[in-house]
């Protein structure tokens, strides 16, 4: 069992938890994820490691309550435990001194972009960060992102804070104004956002890395449930990724595969809401 040591609400339906998971914390690096399971009848879902402390044996997870499992996890308190935390999984981000880089985080993707931006900064890069959310109350970690960025641009879709509009707009301006200066772009967020970030950077020829968040079960490469097409070849996100070249990803296939369990996900939410105090089934 993996006890929850700290819990904080970052925004409505977005929660941060510090979890004791010494094995995962010991080797965790930016870009990697864990598979968690809340309890015995629970499903396995991937969550990115937003931060870790190897000495204390803890990892930080950020979750957005979008379905049954994240809602149930969000309802846990300090002192409760997760049944499974397996990892770290996937390849770490390839951190080097590239020069000037842009890190784009959208919505709950601000959490996983943070350790990537921090590692890039520590490696000597000049970090330009763009973070965006639907509205002001859904935005979090502006201060953390500022602390690891040389420049920070904040956007909200509804214009309630910072620049109004989508993250792709300031990104395009930067790429236009500073042609030749931006070495690389990283983007983490909803699949649609990463798709359009990739479409934005491609004409400028700036290599773009995205972190894919697909349906997963084991997270160790034994089922292929997470497979995507990248550059015309089938790849398993859990072991070949989670980071891929955004220009090569077949986004429409990925988006359609993400929809497949939608009806059952809805059924799971309804089932949970009607019997919250569930016992472990016999």
């Amino acid at each position: 069992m993996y006890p929850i040591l700290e819990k904080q609400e970052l925004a409505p339906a977005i929660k941060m938890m510090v979890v004791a998971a010494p094995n995962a914390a010991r080797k965790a690096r930016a870009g990697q994820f864990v598979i968690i399971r809340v309890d015995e009848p629970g499903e396995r879902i991937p969550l990115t490691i937003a931060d870790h402390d190897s000495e204390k044996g803890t990892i930080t997870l950020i979750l957005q309550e979008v379905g049954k499992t994240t809602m149930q996890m969000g309802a846990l308190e300090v002192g409760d435990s997760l049944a499974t935390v397996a990892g770290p999984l996937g390849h770490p981000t390839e951190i080097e001194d590239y020069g000037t880089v842009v890190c784009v985080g959208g919505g709950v993707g601000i959490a996983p972009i943070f350790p990537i931006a921090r590692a890039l900064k520590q490696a000597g890069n000049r970090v330009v960060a763009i973070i965006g959310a639907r509205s002001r109350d859904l935005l979090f970690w502006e201060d953390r992102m500022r602390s690891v960025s040389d420049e920070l641009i904040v956007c909200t879709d509804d214009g309630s804070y910072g620049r109004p509009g989508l993250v792709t707009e300031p990104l395009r301006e930067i790429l236009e104004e500073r042609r030749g200066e931006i070495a690389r772009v990283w983007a983490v967020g909803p699949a649609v956002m990463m798709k359009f970030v990739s479409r934005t950077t491609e004409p400028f020829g700036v290599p773009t890395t995205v972190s894919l968040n697909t349906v997963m079960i084991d997270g160790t490469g034994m089922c292929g449930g997470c497979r995507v097409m990248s550059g015309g070849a089938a790849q398993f996100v859990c072991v070949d990724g989670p980071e891929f070249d955004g220009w090569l990803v077949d986004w429409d296939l990925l988006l359609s595969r993400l929809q497949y369990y939608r009806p059952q996900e809805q059924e799971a939410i309804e089932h949970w809401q009607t019997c919250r105090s569930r016992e472990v089934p016999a």
Partner: protein
Amino acid sequence: MPRVNPTRTPMAEQAAEERIRNFDEVPYGYTVEEAMAEAQRCLLCKRPTCMDGCPVHINIVGFLELAAKGDFRAAINLIKESDALPAITGRVCPQETQCEQVCVMARKYEPVAIGRVERFLADWEASQGDMPTPELAPPSGKRVAVVGSGPAGLTVAADLARLGHRVTIFEALHEAGGVLVYGIPEFRLPKAIVRREVDYVCGLGAELVKDFVVGQTATLDELLTEFDAVFLGSGAGLPWFLDLPGENLSGVYSANEYLTRSNLMKAYRFPEYDTPIARGRRVITIGGGNVAMDACRTALRLGAEESIVVYRRSREEMPARAEEIDRAEEEGIQFMYLTTPVAIHGDEHGQVESLECLRNQLGEPDASGRRRPVAIEGSNYRVPADIVIMAIGQSPSPLIPRTTADLDTKKDGVVVIDPPTGKTSKRGVFAGGDVATGGATVILAMGQGRTAAAAIDEYLKTGVW
């Protein structure tokens, strides 16, 4: 001379029309009387051949003689000297090609149902309450890491723990058992039985660390700084796909994914359990091995109106156990033989709609000795389906070789071992089971585990590699 009983004692089982609606075990197992009657069929050969057919060389005549007298306690203890997991092997071993094939009775009559009696004894012991722990050797002070808690790893852990070594089993998933929990369905091997056998191995002193992915959570080299030896029993979990057009449509599963959702995650009990699984009306399984049989029979139990197996050769060449093919046929699975899939077609939502196939004829025998299927050009036709399951084989995961420079593997990722010892190219590292064969049976994995355990014990004592 005792009178020879030519026919084996039948074992009662759930009727086909009943069992296709549940995940309960198909055979009920022997009663005390049936088990004794069957054990009494054994001729007690002076030079028994049955033991040669058993990969872990159980003293078969010995345990049958005890069972025939009703001394079940002594009989199960004798089995456990060679086989730590008899409730499992009694159920899933292909006895017809092993012990029962070389039973002397099989020359003229039906062989003694060795597997059924073994299974009875294991279940009898469990029904008696606690399972006594055998005597353990004094602590050797040596530590061994076992990577993977499937049949190979559990066998090695049990053997080495009994020899006094401190064993830690590292398992990537949240439940121990490997293919026994994620691959083989509940209706063939109830998970409560696997848990019972795992508890028995842990009761011998082996420590189980779950959620630990070797190659990620720690590398093999990191394990070697803490342990005197490592046994690699990580199996062959990387599923193969055919690289067909449309293979990434929603509704196309690897058998590993389909079975893991159903067995390990209990998706068949959704929404009581959280993991969803698609319930198709027409399900096609591609392949002809035991995994394909498990997948097509699972589909039926998940409510498929039609569950169809597509296999490129004919029934005679199917690698699945005869008993499993018979059961699948009884349950109403349809078989399309001599059929090669060429494409999967989808609808406007990106979901599977049909499988396009070619008809085959059998050509000359190939390297495997089986007649090679040759596609008949232009014979394309489509079979409607909403789920397609790929059960065409698997190979070892690349996670460990990728992070271990000096571990020799073949092109397909299979770890190279010295068969009499299980030694790999890396000092202190032994391997066995599917990671070293590329995909075989539970009992072969256990046999290789047994061999490796003896070699590990020798290495720990002598330090000679």
